[in-house]
């Protein structure tokens, strides 16, 4: 019953999307067309209907309605409620439904609130949004229907992949999806503005909150994802350059570039065609990411829902959407003038440098991710890993971070290094001292450079606050400073992790004591522990830092029974200056247990930095939305007065 309702809502929403596309298209010719006038309400209702479909899917998962094929394939009545709930999007069909839900609700929201841009531009934007959505509706309804029924109804479901049975799953994919799909709004704005020749600072200001919002969620999603992989996979690493990780990194890089170029467009009416191009590229990267994950075209630890026909469908959508957008770009970009000029040493100059470097890094990641495929066309099998990615991205990222120290201090249009040189003395000195200090230790070049740069950046990113009245400072400026400071912290964490981590793999008897860096760890016991849908062997360790009070750690080796699969649950001891990471391995023949132990100084700064970056984005968004609201209220007041005077 609920499944049928969901399917019906989904079909209706798809029909409305078709109507929305038609209306928006007609509006390009005649804005007075009745269907054109209906585009905004249609977009809102469409958003509501998909939300109903998504809620229906969540409900059938929570009820474990096994007459729905998807539930039977991916759920189990013994699963904890949180994972039943999150299981709704822990599979291909459900996650695609989540995708269109976010997409249609975002479109509905634009239709509801966006009043700044000329009406034809908004209608064209909504038409573009409907065009993209329609493809995904077709994909859902014809090739991956989440509401397909099963007859006869099975007695029990097949369960959810144990690696995904983690609180992280409940939040990680939806967060990333809001980011991915939020970029579709930037894409539609870009297409709408191209179609109606309305690339302007107003357009940039209308698009900016969406880019910012999507970017915040991508940042959070990547940060969570990295931490999840870190503690769940039990390898002690936090980034593996896995194709699926890269799939989330590429849209983030493009969105970061877009975020900066959209600021230039909003403030200075420059970089016009480039910003539009980035709007298209950012969402392309989202779709490429989805394609890489779903098609199984590249081998990945995340490999889920591998199916070539789905891959073909997504590739067709990618080709149609992005191909159409790039064709429009080619036809129309010549009419978009490049806008205001600026000197090399200026805020704009620094932001262009940021854009070039981010695009370079994006290119490096894209090439590295696809290279195995290219090599295969030439008959070679290769895998590309950290030895390529780390130095190649560093070539672009390290210079960019140097400019990150300088850019925010520069004035728009034209400035001189002489003016700001004095301000940079302190961070420069700090960086050099740090570099000198750490160079004495046996550290590789990249972590060493990272440590020096991080030391300089931690101070340099705060300089924009110097001499300003902190009480009147605008929220977006606070946000910028906080995000840049977060980048500095994350860099410090990454560099510290690769420079100072100590690792030990031991075979220990119960009662043994292991020394690792400043830690002394005693291995007390191993006991079986029952869980809701697993049983585990749990070790009890007592770790004491530099002779202090011992901390209890309980790493587990879990065996899930639906479906049967072993996983490791690492146990972490977090201090202000780093994390102790412990994993219980197998028991050897002689009764000794394998223990893997890492001491990772300041590794937590990576995720703390990531959170600060996202929080900075949030502050900026809050500031922008607040000033937009004030403007809207002012406009409404004027309009109200005019109508009263008119009477």
């Amino acid at each position, binding site marked *: 019953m609920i499944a049928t309702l969901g399917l019906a809502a989904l079909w209706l929403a798809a029909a409305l999307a078709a109507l929305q596309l038609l209306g928006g298209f007609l509006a390009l010719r005649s804005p007075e067309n009745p269907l054109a006038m209906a585009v905004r309400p249609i977009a809102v209702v469409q958003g509501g209907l998909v939300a109903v479909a998504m809620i229906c899917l969540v409900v059938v998962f929570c009820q474990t309605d096994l007459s729905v094929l998807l539930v039977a394939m991916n759920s189990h009545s013994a699963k904890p409620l949180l994972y039943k709930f999150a299981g709704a999007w822990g599979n291909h069909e459900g996650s695609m439904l989540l995708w269109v839900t976010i997409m249609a609700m975002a479109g509905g929201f634009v239709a509801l609130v966006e009043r700044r841009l000329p009406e034809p531009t908004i209608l064209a934007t909504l038409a573009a949004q409907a065009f993209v959505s329609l493809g995904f509706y077709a994909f859902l309804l014809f090739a991956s229907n989440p509401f397909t029924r099963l007859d006869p109804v099975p007695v029990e479901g097949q369960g959810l992949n144990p690696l995904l049975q983690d609180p992280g799953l409940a939040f990680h994919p939806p967060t990333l999806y809001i980011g991915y799909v939020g970029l579709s709004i930037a894409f539609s704005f870009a297409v709408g503005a191209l179609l109606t020749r309305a690339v302007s600072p107003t357009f940039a200001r209308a698009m900016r909150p969406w880019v910012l919002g999507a970017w915040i969620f991508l940042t959070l999603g990547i940060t969570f994802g990295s931490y999840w992989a870190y503690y769940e996979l039990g390898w002690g690493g936090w980034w593996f350059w896995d194709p699926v990780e890269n799939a989330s990194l590429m849209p983030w890089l493009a969105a970061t570039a877009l975020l900066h170029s959209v600021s230039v467009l909003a403030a200075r009416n420059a970089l016009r065609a480039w910003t539009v191009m980035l709007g298209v590229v950012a969402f*392309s990267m989202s779709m490429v990411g989805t394609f890489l994950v779903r098609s199984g075209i590249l081998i990945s630890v995340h490999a889920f829902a591998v199916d*070539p026909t789905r891959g073909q469908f997504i590739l067709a959508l*990618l080709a149609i959407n992005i191909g159409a957008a*790039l064709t429009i*770009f*080619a036809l129309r*970009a*010549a009419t978009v003038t490049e806008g205001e000029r600026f000197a090399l040493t200026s805020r704009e100059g620094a932001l262009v440098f940021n854009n070039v470097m981010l695009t370079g890094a994006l290119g490096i990641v894209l090439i590295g991710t696809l290279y195995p495929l290219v090599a295969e066309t030439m008959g070679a099998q290769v895998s590309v890993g950290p030895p390529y990615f780390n130095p190649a991205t560093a070539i672009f990222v390290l210079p960019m971070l140097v400019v990150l120290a300088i850019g925010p201090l520069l004035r728009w249009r034209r400035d001189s290094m002489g003016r700001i040189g004095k301000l940079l003395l302190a961070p420069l000195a700090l960086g050099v001292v740090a570099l000198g200090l750490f160079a004495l230790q046996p550290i590789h070049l990249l972590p060493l450079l990272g440590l020096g740069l991080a030391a300089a950046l931690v101070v340099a990113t705060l300089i924009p606050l110097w001499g300003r009245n902190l009480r009147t400072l605008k929220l977006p400026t606070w946000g910028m400073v906080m995000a840049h400071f977060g980048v500095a912290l994350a860099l410090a964490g990454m560099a510290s992790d690769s420079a100072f981590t100590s690792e030990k793999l031991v075979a220990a008897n119960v009662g043994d004591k292991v020394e690792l860096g400043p830690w002394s760890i005693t291995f007390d016991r191993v006991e079986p522990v029952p869980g809701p849908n697993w049983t585990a062997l749990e070790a009890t360790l007592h770790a004491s830092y530099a002779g202090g009070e011992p901390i209890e750690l309980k790493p587990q080796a879990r065996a899930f029974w639906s479906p049967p699969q072993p996983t490791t649950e690492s146990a972490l001891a977090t201090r202000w200056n780093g994390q102790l990471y412990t994993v219980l391995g197998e028991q050897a023949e002689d009764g000794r247990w394998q223990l893997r132990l890492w001491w990772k100084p300041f590794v937590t700064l990576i995720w703390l930095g990531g959170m600060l970056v996202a929080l900075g984005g949030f502050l900026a968004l809050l500031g922008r939305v607040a000033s937009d609201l004030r403007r809207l209220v002012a406009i409404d007041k004027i309009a109200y007065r005019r109508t009263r005077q008119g009477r």
Partner: protein
Amino acid sequence: MTAATPQATARWHLWLPLVLFGAFVVLLLYGLLRPADRDIKSAMIGKPLPQFALRPAAEGLPGLSFADMADGKPKLLNIFASWCVPCAAEAPQLAQLRASGVEVVGVAIRDKPDDLKRFLTRNGNPYSRIGADDASAIQFEIGSSGVPESFVIDGKGIIRYQHIGDIRADQVATIVTKVREAGQ
């Protein structure tokens, strides 16, 4: 970025993104439609086995050393363990290989003689020799990461083919061909 010119003639470089994107789509399409060969090939193929000598793992059967693998006859080197469930599932296929004239030798990973004896009694013994690899040392050296795995070794001790996972009934013929090829 060039300076803006007022005339709105189509400029060729604006089509560049579309062309690049086209090439990108073609590459992805190729990736999708290529034959689905997802075996990770061992970097060890074409290389000789390392020098090794393993003690006998089971009563009544000799152990295994490099010299045994380079005696001029091609063999199937099967990496297995009595505690490994897919290894038991693979046993009928190994028996079938043995019956078609393939000499099968085993490397038992972290196993005990008693367990192994029980395993061979229950599942049959296709092996002419079994070496005991107590620390997975040889296993890792020849580029195997799990059990079961099988390698076709030619008469000179050179690895010719790697099969990851248990050998299924429909894969027996391939293995037989590979062993015959290695013998030529």
